[in-house]
């Protein structure tokens, strides 16, 4: 779960990391209220999970109320990389003396947490040469020795250095306690008076750990379809096209997506109902897909073996019978009882195939 900037900053604040004064607004009335609290000039920051907001013009300076009305309207309606904001953050201007980069993240390759710090902040870390990367030896936090090893390389005076060490330890506490995959501050700025302030916040929480973090659940923003899918234990991703792809296993569904794409089709939904394929789970998967209006045809790719194919066919039939689905279903089903499955679906809009290639061809041509 990727937190929005203001959510990440709320967490930072709870851990004693300085953030600028700000006000969150859903509409222009709230924004006007906020402007009285913060005072012009300030910045308007669109609350989006996608990166590159600055370049996309989703962060704007605002000098007076006239500008506020115009720019708020502009930002709240502005889509960046397919995402539209629900809120805009009003944030006080920062008088930046120096900028740094600091992050702690899950290092998949090394299977540990690592820290990256640089005395060049405010730009994408990938393009920075001068950076320190240190792997953390265990999951018990970061020692002050290790933190000072990092701080030593940041060109800081003594008092700044101590603040920086403290900051690293606060951030690592946050990472471990909240089970984040990433906590990034970029830029981390020194303002007037040697104070370090987090001007941005990028935090990703481990979805699988959410069950033991009730305080973070409020940040989970699922669409109705996503939450329906989640409640059933499915993985669901909405895409641009008009073909829904359903299967048992993430890899298999991804692979089907690739093959549909190669055959000239465009997937509109990805749904993995997991290893436990039952009549009920397949029916529920079709139910989720039925809510996606743009879907013209459903492709089911099921690797059988443990599930009986006639039970799959029964699920499809049930979904037609109670009008849950109206569009054709093309399914590749291998395994036991496939003749029985064919027989069940004989008079429906569903067709069964023995190979995935045949099922994809029929789907794309439809």
């Amino acid at each position, binding site marked *: 779960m990727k937190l929005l900037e203001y959510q990440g900053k709320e967490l930072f604040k709870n851990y004693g990391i300085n953030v600028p004064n700000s006000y969150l607004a859903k509409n222009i009335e709230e924004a006007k209220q906020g402007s009285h609290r913060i005072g012009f000039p300030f910045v308007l920051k669109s609350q989006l999970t996608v990166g590159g907001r600055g370049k996309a013009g989703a962060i704007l300076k605002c000098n007076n109320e006239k500008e506020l009305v115009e720019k708020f309207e502009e930002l709240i309606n502005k889509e960046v990389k397919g995402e539209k904001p629900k809120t805009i953050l009003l944030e006080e201007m920062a008088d930046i003396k120096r900028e740094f980069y600091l992050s702690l993240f899950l290092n998949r390759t090394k299977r540990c947490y690592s820290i990256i710090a640089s005395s060049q902040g405010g730009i994408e870390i990938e393009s920075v040469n001068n950076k320190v990367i240190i792997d953390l030896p265990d999951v018990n936090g970061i020692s002050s020795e290790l933190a000072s090893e990092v701080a030593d390389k940041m060109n800081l005076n003594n008092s700044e250095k101590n603040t920086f060490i403290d900051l690293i330890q606060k951030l690592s506490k946050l990472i471990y306690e909240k*089970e984040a995959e990433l906590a990034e501050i970029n830029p981390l700025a020194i303002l007037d008076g040697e104070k370090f302030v987090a001007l941005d916040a990028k935090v990703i929480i481990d979805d699988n750990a959410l069950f033991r973090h009730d305080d973070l659940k409020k940040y989970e923003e699922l669409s109705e379809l996503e939450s329906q899918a989640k409640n059933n234990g499915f993985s669901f*991703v909405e895409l641009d096209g008009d073909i829904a792809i359903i299967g048992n*296993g*993430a890899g*298999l569904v991804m692979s089907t997506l690739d093959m549909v794409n190669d055959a000239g089709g465009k997937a509109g939904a990805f749904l993995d109902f997991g*290893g436990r394929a039952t009549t009920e789970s397949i029916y529920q998967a079709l139910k989720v897909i039925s809510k996606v209006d743009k879907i013209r045809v459903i492709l089911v790719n099921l690797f059988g073996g443990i599930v009986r194919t006639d039970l799959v066919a029964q699920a499809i039939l049930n979904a037609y019978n109670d009008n849950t689905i109206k569009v054709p279903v093309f399914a590749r089903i291998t395994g036991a009882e496939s003749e029985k499955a064919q027989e069940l679906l004989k008079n429906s809009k569903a067709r069964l195939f023995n190979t995935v290639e045949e099922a994809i061809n029929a789907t794309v041509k439809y």
Partner: protein
Amino acid sequence: MSIKFDIFKILIGDETDRDYKNKPVIIQGMTGSFGSTHTKLMKDYGTNIVAGVTPGKGGQSFEDIPIFNTVAEAVESKSAQISGIFVPAPFFLSAAKEAIDNGIKLLVAVPEHVPIIDSIKILEYAEKRGARMIGPNTPGVIVPEIMKVGIMPAKPFTQGSTVVFSRSGTLMYEVSYTLSNAGYGQKFCLGIGGDPINGTNLIEAFDLIKEREDIESIVVVGEIGGDAEEKLADYIISTTFSKPVVAYVAGRAAPKEKKMGHAGAIVYGNYGSAESKVSNYSKANVPVAKRPGEVPELLKSKLKK
């Protein structure tokens, strides 16, 4: 870090062992619906399941397999070194720790949705005690026609001399099935797991089998996310790995920054992208199939050379 760990010795043993091809296995979480379904399927396949563990259900039995409250009791009589873990994700950390504390050397961690920190903790714990974890979120391991620990169906797998390592469960079945149909049976198949953190990663999996002469070729089924394939390509180059390797990578058409079902299947920028994996594989002279069905052809031409 790479302790000499002979997975075949643990899974099937030596010909001189009295329990050759009949090594004892325990199942943690055997009484749940998932655990019980697959315990029966594993037993039918030939796996010697000697005990189940479910706290609070000690004294009961399932399919004539005794159930105990603790791992200590379960391993007592038969000294099992293998555990198939089927407990729900929130209980994984304590179950895995208990297994390692009681002499289990190979943990097959089936549960999906294990918190990352718990996986890292178990990884550290296992490493210090000479144990190895496969998974979490793995379909398990299978030595075709001899035994399996996990949730894979039996049908796709036949005995032979190739090996399949897969980051995806169903694709492991799919690819093994196409291989079996084309006459390429498998010596061994291992699911790496779909999580960002794997107890046994691709390089370690290669290390497990690199010296075995009865293994002719390796098929690697990968997917987008992380850099396991890139690192494997580096490893193949730097160790001048000599056995033929063929790969498949799922997720070429997946959008960026979206989790595609598996917790680990996500692309950030170019990191984790299919293009990056394919281009690194090509540097290591590993052909990459466009679809699962193409794997046998690629393997055939690779074996000819």
